[in-house]
């Protein structure tokens, strides 16, 4: 899975996000660092923010396309 596909999934899940960044950490297409800044996170605890990202990437997480996922989220408030 390439970083662009992950980015599309995140942009679809967080429309209007101020920032979506996806890094393929190893170049192998399965270790990703994702950073999302969105109003969708405003008022949510860190764990609920990460839950939203996990939900957006549920399919590639479940089928093993993402082997390792590092998440950084931020609200805009």
């Amino acid at each position, binding site marked *: 899975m390439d970083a662009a596909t992950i980015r599309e999934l995140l942009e679809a899940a967080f429309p209007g996000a101020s920032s979506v960044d996806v890094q393929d950490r190893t170049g192998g297409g399965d270790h990703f660092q994702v950073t999302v800044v969105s109003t969708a996170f405003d008022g949510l605890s*860190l*764990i609920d923010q*990460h*839950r939203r990202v*996990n939900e957006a990437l*549920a399919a590639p*997480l*479940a089928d093993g396309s993402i082997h*390792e*996922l*590092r*998440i*950084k989220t931020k609200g805009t408030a």
Partner: protein
Amino acid sequence: MKTLNEQISDVIAQEPVAVFMKGTPQMIMCGNSHRALQALQAAGAPITAVDILPDPRIRRELSSISGWPTIPQVFVRGELVGGADITEELASSGELQQKLDDALGADRAQDVKVVELQLA
């Protein structure tokens, strides 16, 4: 014998700080599990570790209980704190230590132990 689901639920409910990880604190098999452990130890947490690698069913049952898809998973007094990223973030902001102080008291022991699940 208790089912795997019951054994996992028991560890989560009964252990002050439960960490489901790849490997054990003596032999860590994944960078993220290492990060979570380091953050917990820096915050002065006791650790009860469960290795999820011996059987794929462990991870499956754990994720069905917690609703969290990735490993490691850190629980304090039965409550999911998060994975490696959140544990690190909360440790560096001081919130993890505060959470541990509130849940376990400031003069807590810092024991490390490993629980082996019984596989049918």
